[in-house]
């Protein structure tokens, strides 16, 4: 699975006829109603769509946190949907970085230790200090989460996600809990990782303004991808209109 920066035509992800239903009988919820998707390596994808349209469900399945009701997911040539829990854990450990809306930092570890937590268990990590520098937090490395602002905590989360040099970075509403100014700093950190590390990146948002920084925008509604739009010239995060 050596998908590298030079191999830009390689496919990072492929999903075939993904469906996901919750519950049964009258209470059945169709979160995904058949999603087909290919994400080339190194691409930055933004997923847009109203709340409840199935964005998080799709992202969680692609990231190996959840499994679909039917359909298949390939990571490169390997079929994720055939993995057991142990292999999914290993897959996440080696290839995937996650950033969530609520940061999910470990309160009992400093910023640097939160990053080191991940670099300790990955094969080809950068140094935690370097990852924190990438998100502009080299001054706050020894601080505990309680001593950081929301935006800073989220940047630590990004540093933690990219420190292992993941093949893919999944961000579920990374700016959801932040004001626009802080949000832009966070998005810059993500864009930089995508640019400098050539990480395939998938960002969920319901803020259409953010979409302008993507190579491709997928519009989801009602458990399906309704529309896909390419940006030949994505703009930098600091030019986004919020």
């Amino acid at each position, binding site marked *: 699975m050596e998908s590298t920066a030079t191999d830009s035509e390689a496919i990072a992800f492929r999903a075939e006829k993904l469906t996901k239903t919750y519950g049964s009988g009258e209470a059945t919820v169709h979160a995904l109603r058949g999603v087909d998707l290919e994400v080339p390596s190194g691409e930055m994808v933004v997923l847009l769509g109203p709340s409840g349209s199935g964005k998080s469900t799709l992202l969680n399945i692609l990231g190996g946190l959840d499994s679909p009701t039917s359909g298949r997911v390939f990571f490169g040539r390997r079929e994720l949907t055939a993995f057991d829990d142990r292999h999914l854990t290993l897959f996440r450990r080696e290839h995937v970085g996650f950033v969530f809306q609520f940061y999910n930092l470990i309160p009992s570890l400093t910023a640097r230790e939160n990053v080191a937590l991940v670099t*300790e268990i990955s094969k080809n990590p950068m140094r935690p200090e370097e990852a924190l520098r990438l998100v502009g937090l080299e001054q706050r490395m020894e601080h505990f989460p309680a001593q950081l602002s929301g935006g800073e905590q989220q940047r630590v989360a990004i540093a933690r996600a990219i420190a292992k040099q993941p093949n893919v970075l999944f961000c579920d509403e990374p700016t959801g809990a932040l004001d626009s100014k802080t949000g832009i700093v966070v998005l810059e950190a993500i864009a930089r990782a995508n640019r400098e590390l050539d990480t395939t990146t998938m960002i969920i948002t319901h803020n259409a303004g953010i979409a302008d920084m993507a190579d491709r925008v997928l519009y989801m509604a009602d458990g399906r991808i309704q529309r896909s739009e390419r940006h030949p010239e994505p703009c930098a995060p600091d030019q986004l209109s919020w």
Partner: protein
Amino acid sequence: MLIELLKPLNRKLVRDLWAIKGQGLAIAIVIGCGVGMYLMSRGMLLSLSETRAAYYERYRFADVVAPVKRAPNALLDEITALPGVRRAETRIRAGVILDVEGSSAPITGEIQSLPEVPTPHINDIVLRRGRYVDPQHEEEVLALDAFAEAHGLGPGDHLHAILNGTRKRLTITGIVLSPEYIYAISPGEIVPDKKRFGVLWMNREALANAFDLDGAFNEAVLLTSAGSNEDALIDQLDTLLKRYGATGAYGRDQQISDQFLTNEIDQLETIGRILPPIFLLVATFLLNVVVGRLIDTEREQIGLLKAFGYTDRDVAIHYLKMIGVIVLLGILVGIVLGTWLGRGLANMYQDFFKFPFLLFRAPLQVYLVAVGVSLLVAVAGTFSSVRRVMQLEPAVAMVPPPPPDYSRSARWIERLSAWIDQPTRMILRHIYRWPRRAAMAVLGIGMSMGLLIGASFSMDAMMYMVDISFNVIDRQDVTVNFFDPRNDRAIYDVMHAPGVITAEPFRAIPVVLRNGPRMRRESIVGILPDAQLSRVVDTELKPVEVPPAGIVLSDKLAELLQIGPGELLRVEVRTGRRPELDVPVSGVVKTYMGTAAYMDLAHLNRLLGEDTSINGTYLLVDPLQTDALYRELKNTPLVAGVSLQEQAQNAFYETLQDSLGTFVFFNTLFAGLIAVGVVYNNARISLSERGRELASLRVLGLTRGEISYILLGELGLLTIIALPLGALLGYLLAATLVMSFDTELFRIPLVIGPSTYGYAALVVLLAALGSGLLVRRRIDRLDLIAVLKTRE
């Protein structure tokens, strides 16, 4: 669904309770153990003392017994005329050696006279099977139930008895119980041995013939009238009966069966006083921890409820209901458990204490106390948490709490940081961040281990006590008692019996010992100064020689008389010429059983103004020839009683296994439950507090094993820290128990074997492991996505 009918807040209650069912149950069980233990011990105590009172009342158990050597029957009128006497009877009671088919060892027993009317008025007997004896038939006897049962004897069966040196064949016509022999034990022993102690009742005339007591008696039994002065009566009896060889009248407090029964009741009292409070303390503490932390995690919900308009009271009542359900469940568990244990204990007691009836019935007020105390426990455990709920401002509660601040971490942890991995660092910082919680967990686990040690050490201590008593102090194999004092040449008669290796003489005389107002009826045993078989040992358990003059007291007797070495003790001899002497206390020695007093045999005889005379010998025998020896002893006329050390020791071990073993087993169970309760609760709460953190780690790619380490490693660490504390608490509990079990009958040394510490630690570790595994299963099922969706 039923739940639909409830108001929303009550639905939340039901669902919340369901969510913490494991923890709730653990607390309920700990409360239940305390309540159950209390019900059992308190209920049994009351059942036992009420049954005893009823039995004594109905069968007119004597208030005072006055043994004499021989007194004319006509004296009864004078005895009855003494002030304070409600009724008096005379009887003949003597020691016998019994010979039952199938038992080669001689059996020590007692035989009592029956009046012409079928049964005595005082110390009446309960006919269980068969019929009373026919006055026309000299050979007919009644036999004590326990003894007959142990030998498979029933009405119509025969046995032999050596009555005053004459062997007689007797026929059992009936099986009886007697209030005098509820605890049927032969004098000088500490556990009953049904096989080796028999009691028979026989026609008075036949018995009088056998013991040359025609027209005479050797014991008067009395009922006193209400409000009479028993001590004064005893003094008057002693004066009246002095001429007839009175050894000293005594009240119920010196009656051996009643003494043991009282001792048992006292022990139940102690257990009921010490153990249930410990359980309830642990329950208080668990409730405090669980409810406190539960309310912390529900901060936002509480704020929300208040914001919507629920009053402080509504919200507090909501949590009180939750606590109430857990406590009520605990009380219920306790009542069921206590009643069940009580019944079991009553059955066990029926084996030791022969009552015509013994029912476990705890009176209502015992239940009420148990319920009341449990409710108090609930209030004490949850007061501060519920008050916090009331005081919480909705606006404050709804602002999500900032991440817990770990920045004030201990410097030593940071210095260690370079050496330890992240997860371990997380564990240490977490403990340091919440030191009170960690301390509470350590204390809780420590208490459960302490309880285990306190419950099971008594086995070690008893074993030690028996070992010292039988192998260091009394090393003889056989003790032979003679009917009357004999010239010391009598020892040669016994020496020639087959299998006897050595024999050492002794003389035991009844005395009254006085030191100022303190008075004790005892025997003084005269032994050889350099005795090798039955020895006296000092407090370091080194054998000491009995000094040529003065009296040596056992430590307990010295304590009871409040006298020390060098002081003068008044000795009133109650046999022979009945001299009254002042004898210096020449030493105090260690004993675990009884309240012995020793003197140099020659010195004792000199004080009595008699030639060397003895009334028994200690024997060391060849184990291969015991059968021949026993046969000889059964047929030696001067032998009045024989006690066999090995069988006494075995009986003791058996009793220990049966009674104490059961007790230890239940305590272990309870203490184990507490350990599980504490550890499991801690793990569960940690999991609910840190579930989010752990799920995040899983998302980052840590394995289940790795995140389990973070949670369970902390518990493991706390458990290990708790072990030394538990050992200390156990030692303290054992010391308390030892102090309260210190009685005239026996003392338990404070001996805790390493295996007891090890065993307690093992149970705690296993409990921790079990809880860990239970929680580990939950960690494995952690819902990653759900955790990431919500804020807290």
